[in-house]
C-alpha cells in the first residue's frame, strides 16, 4: 500500500462527488424558477439511490469476476463490500475500498448527467426507479467493459479477466468518455424521445432563470474534474500530473472555441456559452487526457467547444426536446474525445500509443470508433427499453397541468425563491402548531 497514492485517490473521490452537486447547479440555473428544485433533486436522488446500490452490489457487478460471458461481473462476489475491508485487500497500490469509493462517484455522476435531457416533466418517484434500474442494467455492465482491467499474475497470465472494451478491443478511455459521457448522452437522447417535448417547446420561451448558478455549477464541475481525470491515474504520479494539465488546457481551449462560434453565429459571446464550452471541453478530454500531449489537448478542446456549440441546434432541427443539451454536450463531446484519440494520441503521453497524426496509422482509430459506437448503441437501446417499461407501468411523465404550473410544486411541494411577493407570506396550518406554546 502506498500512502501518497491512497491520499490522492481518496481526495479525488471527494472531488468527484462534488461534481454531482455541480451538475445540479449547472442544470438548475438553466431551467425556469418553477422547476429548479426538481432539477436539483434529480441529482440528489442519484446520490441517494446509486450510492447505496454501489456498495450493496454495484461495485461487485462492475469489478468482480466475469459472469454471463463477460456481460457483467458477479454482483454477489463483493456483496456489501464483503472481503474488501481487510488491511491486506489492495487494488494496485491503494486499499480496495479507496478504489470502491472513487468509482462510486462516477456511477452517481453518470445518472445525474442524464437528468438534463428530461427537465421540467419527469415525475420524481419514477426517476428514482429509473436511476436504480438503469445503473444496474446499463452503467454497472458498461463500467465493467471499460474500467475493469484484466488481473494478471507475476508471469503476466490473466487470472481475473476484465471487460472487453478495455482488454480485448483495447480502447483508450482513461476516465470515462464512453462509460460516463457517451453512456449518459445516449440515455438522455432515448429518454427525451420517450418522454416527449415539454409543453410549449420550442415555441414558448424557456430562458435559463439563473446564469450565475450555471457558472457556479460549471466551476464546481471543472474543480471536481481534476479528481475525475487525474484521480483516474489511481496514484500520485506523473500520469496524474499530465492528465491534470491536459484537463486544464483542453477546457480552456473549449471555452474559447464555443465563444468564437457564438461571436460569429449570434453576434455576442455569452456567459452560458462560456460555461457550456468549459463542460464540453471537460467531457472531450476525459477519455483522452492520458493519451495526448498538451498541444493535442488544446486541439481536442477547441474542436469539442466549437462542434458542441453547433451540435446543440440539432434538437431544433430534429424536434426532440433534449432540454439542457445532454446530447449536444455529453454525447457529442464524448464521441469527439473518444474518437479524436485515434488522431491525436502521442506515444509521448502516458498511454504511449501513437494516433494517425503521429504516425500510428489507423489501428487505434478504429478501436476508438468501435468502442464509442458499442456503448452508444447499447445505452440507447437498453435505456429505451427500461424507459418504456416504466412509462407503461407506473408512468414516467408529469400530467400536463402540473407541468405548466411547475414541477417543484407538483412533486416536492416547495418553491425555490421567496422574494417578498404576496405568496411568501402564507399562513401556517393549524396542525403544524399543535403542542406549540407560542
Amino acid at each position, binding site marked *: 500500500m502506498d500512502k501518497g497514492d491512497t491520499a490522492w485517490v481518496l481526495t479525488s473521490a471527494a472531488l468527484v462527488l462534488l461534481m454531482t452537486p455541480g451538475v445540479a447547479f449547472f442544470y438548475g440555473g438553466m431551467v425556469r424558477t418553477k422547476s429548479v428544485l426538481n432539477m436539483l433533486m434529480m441529482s440528489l436522488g442519484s446520490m441517494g439511490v446509486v450510492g447505496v446500490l454501489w456498495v450493496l452490489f454495484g461495485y461487485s457487478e462492475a469489478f468482480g469476476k466475469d459472469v454471463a460471458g463477460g456481460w457483467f461481473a458477479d454482483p454477489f462476489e463483493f456483496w456489501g463490500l464483503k472481503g474488501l475491508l481487510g488491511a491486506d485487500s489492495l487494488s494496485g497500490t491503494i486499499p480496495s475500498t479507496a478504489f470502491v469509493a472513487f468509482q462510486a462517484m462516477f456511477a452517481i455522476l453518470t445518472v445525474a448527467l442524464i437528468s438534463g435531457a428530461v427537465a421540467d416533466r419527469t415525475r420524481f418517484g419514477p426517476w428514482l426507479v429509473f436511476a436504480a434500474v438503469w445503473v444496474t442494467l446499463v452503467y454497472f455492465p458498461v463500467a465493467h467493459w471499460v474500467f475493469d482491467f484484466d488481473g494478471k499474475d507475476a508471469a503476466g497470465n490473466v487470472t481475473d479477466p476484465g471487460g472487453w472494451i478495455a482488454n480485448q478491443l483495447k480502447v483508450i478511455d482513461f476516465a470515462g468518455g464512453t462509460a460516463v459521457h457517451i453512456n449518459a448522452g445516449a440515455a438522455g437522447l432515448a429518454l427525451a424521445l420517450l418522454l416527449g417535448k415539454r409543453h410549449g417547446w*420550442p415555441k414558448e*420561451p424557456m*430562458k*435559463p432563470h439563473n446564469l450565475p448558478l450555471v457558472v457556479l455549477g460549471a466551476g464546481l464541475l471543472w474543480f471536481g474534474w481534476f479528481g475525475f481525470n487525474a484521480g483516474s491515474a489511481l496514484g500520485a504520479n506523473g500520469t496524474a500530473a499530465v492528465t491534470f494539465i491536459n484537463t486544464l488546457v483542453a477546457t480552456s481551449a473549449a471555452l474559447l472555441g464555443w465563444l468564437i462560434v*457564438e461571436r460569429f*453565429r*449570434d*453576434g*455576442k459571446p*455569452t456567459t*452560458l*456559452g462560456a460555461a*457550456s464550452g468549459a463542460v464540453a471541453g471537460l467531457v472531450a478530454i476525459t477519455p483522452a487526457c492520458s493519451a495526448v500531449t498538451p498541444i493535442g489537448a488544446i486541439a481536442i478542446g477547441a474542436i469539442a467547444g466549437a462542434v458542441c*456549440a453547433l451540435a*446543440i*441546434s440539432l434538437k*431544433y432541427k430534429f424536434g426532440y426536446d433534449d432540454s439542457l*443539451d445532454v446530447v449536444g454536450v455529453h454525447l457529442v463531446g464524448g464521441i469527439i474525445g473518444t474518437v479524436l484519440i485515434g488522431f491525436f494520441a502521442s506515444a509521448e503521453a502516458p498511454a504511449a500509443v501513437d494516433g494517425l497524426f503521429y504516425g500510428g496509422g489507423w489501428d487505434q482509430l478504429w478501436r476508438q470508433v468501435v468502442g464509442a459506437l458499442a456503448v452508444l448503441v447499447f445505452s440507447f437501446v437498453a435505456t429505451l427499453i427500461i424507459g418504456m417499461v416504466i412509462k407503461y407501468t407506473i408512468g414516467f411523465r408529469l400530467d400536463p397541468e402540473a407541468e405548466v404550473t411547475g414541477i417543484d410544486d407538483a412533486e416536492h411541494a416547495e418553491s425555490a425563491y421567496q422574494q417578498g411577493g404576496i405568496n411568501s407570506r402564507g399562513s401556517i396550518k393549524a396542525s403544524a402548531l399543535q403542542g406549540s406554546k407560542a
Partner: protein
Amino acid sequence: MKLITAIVKPFTLDDVKDALEQLGVFGMTVSEVQGYGRQKGHTEVYRGAEYAVDFVPKLRVEVVVDDASVDKVVEVIVDSARTGKIGDGKVWVTPVETIVRVRTGERGTDAL
C-alpha cells in the same frame, strides 16, 4: 388635484426625484413595470436559441399635486427624464376626486 403618472427609464429616477424635491413635491410612489412603446423590445440568445424580449423594464412614478402646480411638475419630470433617445417614456395627467391622509383623516389638498 391631479395624478401625474410618468413612465421613465430606470436610470433617470434620481434626477426626477431630485428635481421634484426642489419643486417642493414631498412624496411619490415608484413601481417597477415592464412595457414597450415605439422602442420595442430586444433579442437575447441562449445556446443559440433567440428569444425576443418584448417588454422593456421601466419605472412608473406617480405623484398627486394641486391643480396650480401641474404644469410645472410635468415640465420638470419631462426635462429630467429626457435623454433624447427612443424609449424615454411618457407622462400623463388624470384628475383626482379626493385624497385622504390615513394617519390624520385630513382630506383634499391638506392631505398632500
